[in-house]
């Protein structure tokens, strides 16, 4: 008589197991050595990335490693995220691995690589629920923006001051609670007074389109996923009015 030795699949609900069909990452480089660097990013291997980057820098230039290894790998991570194959933890791990790799390349070059542009991010004053901001930071980082992360529970003045010092292409605010989002119009008013016409993207659990489009410079961010696309628009020179009519309404 035959006995079933592996019973692990008996009760597997294939119809519901949404990750069964998970497809692997695609190749991003024709060069095997650079593909290897990209794979460390795709796998979010923060522990291994330093060694592999150092090793690769013996035969490749820092810019090759950055552009064709680290950033190409991160682009693939963005694709896997967009397709719902990767989730937030993978994006954070990959983004951290990429940044560690970039830091090593920068050290070798003796200068910082040019980022696309700066984005100031914060969670509203009184609100310590910064998870929305964590997502925004990871995605912006992943897409080559320099994130000026002000963290959670940030006073209005501090946000305005950061905008003055860093001159970002965009500023974001997240709020989980309806009670804390009232800080956003205050920030917008101050920015306007200082003539800092920076698109101000606001989103998060409690934040509605109606509320954000109720004050100048405000653009409503429905999902954290929209942050990189919005930052690209801002980088391309779109003013808040154009961004609002594209992303809202």
């Amino acid at each position, binding site marked *: 008589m035959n006995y079933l030795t592996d019973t692990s699949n008996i009760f597997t609900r294939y119809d519901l197991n949404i990750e069964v069909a998970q497809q692997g990452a695609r190749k991003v480089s024709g060069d095997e050595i650079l593909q290897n660097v990209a794979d460390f990013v795709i796998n979010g291997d923060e522990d291994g990335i330093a060694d592999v980057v150092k090793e690769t820098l013996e035969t490749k230039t820092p810019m090759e490693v950055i552009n064709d290894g680290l950033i190409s790998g991160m682009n693939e991570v963005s694709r896997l995220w967009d397709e719902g194959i990767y989730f937030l933890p993978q994006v954070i791990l990959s983004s951290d691995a990429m940044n560690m790799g970039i830091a090593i390349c920068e050290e070798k070059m003796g200068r910082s690589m040019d980022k696309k542009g700066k984005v100031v991010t914060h969670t509203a004053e009184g609100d310590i629920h910064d*998870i929305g901001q964590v997502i925004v930071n990871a995605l912006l980082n992943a897409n080559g923006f320099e994130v000026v992360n002000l963290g959670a529970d940030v006073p209005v003045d501090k946000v305005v001051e950061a905008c003055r010092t860093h001159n970002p292409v965009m500023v974001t605010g997240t709020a989980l609670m309806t009670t804390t989002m009232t800080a956003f119009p205050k920030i917008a008013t101050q920015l306007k007074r200082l003539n800092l016409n920076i698109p101000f993207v606001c989103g998060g*659990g409690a934040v509605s389109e*109606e509320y954000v489009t109720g004050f100048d410079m405000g653009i409503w961010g429905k999902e954290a996923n929209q942050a990189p696309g919005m930052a690209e628009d801002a980088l391309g020179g779109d003013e808040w009015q154009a961004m609002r009519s594209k992303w809202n309404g």
Partner: protein
Amino acid sequence: MKPKERVMKVFNREKPDVMPCFCVNGTPTYQQMEKVGAYWPEAHERAEDMAKLAMAAYTELGFDAVRAPFCQTFEAEALGCTVKWGGKENIPGIDHPVLHKLDDIPKLPDDFLERGRIPQLIEAIRIMKREVGDEVAIIGGIIGPFTIAGAMLDAVPILKATIKSPDKIHPFLEIGEQAGTLLGKALIDAGADLIAVEDMQASPDLIAPKSYQKLEVEYQRRQVEALDVPVIIHICGNVDKIIPFMEDTCCAAISIEPKSDVRVARKILGPEGILIGGVDTATTLFMKGPEEVRAGSIEQIEMGLDILAPGCAIAPGTPIENLLEMVKVAREYKYD
């Protein structure tokens, strides 16, 4: 039919007279505070105020159940986490510094139930039971294991660990489960008819569905089994992908917000599963008027709800007429 009977009939898989309406999450609004004379922050800290404000959901709104507490910090505070107080307007939250690093082995204090504000919460449930326990269902609120673990470790470290070193999370889940279960049992002893577990951080918005399945379901299942009243599990965000796994916890009911698709959940749970949900607490209940609340509530009910509820904790600035309208809608769904 008394509100309590109405609620319990649903959990006993019998037909109530009309659809019950209550909130699985926090219920207070500033208007309710004014009406009953119990305010934040006292109602987060003192049993009498907490009970008074919780009961406003029945006396002022006509909800079929009342619920305490109003924040997600009781277990974490008792475990040693730092609480950031919310003052008159806000709910308390967990602040830095973070209690633990991933390599630590957390411990459940022997006097867990005597720590922080837990005795006040237990007493509040006792008061609620005494005052309105014959009329309405009493819900005791606890926090899910993964979310308590997240409070101990902070969000980014625990998220990274779900992929990198899931084994290191287990001791924290273990303590999170024990803490919630201990509190849940104490709340049941004090008079809770139902337990609501909020597990915000276990949402697919934050962790992979596979991580939820592999890390959290077993602890939730254990918790559900240990608590001998019906347990409602509430997870925020779009939970479509984890509904089958939430079902595996054997909880009595699943509570979702409108970012999830009620139809998907209904299809997976079948006609027997109890589904709680309703309109968005920010974009509709807080920002719009009774008309939109009515339309949105009907839309959600028609997709297959058993109990109408705000999708999450009620925003404290929510106008009372919106909440009253929601109750009115539920009353119109009669079962014969």
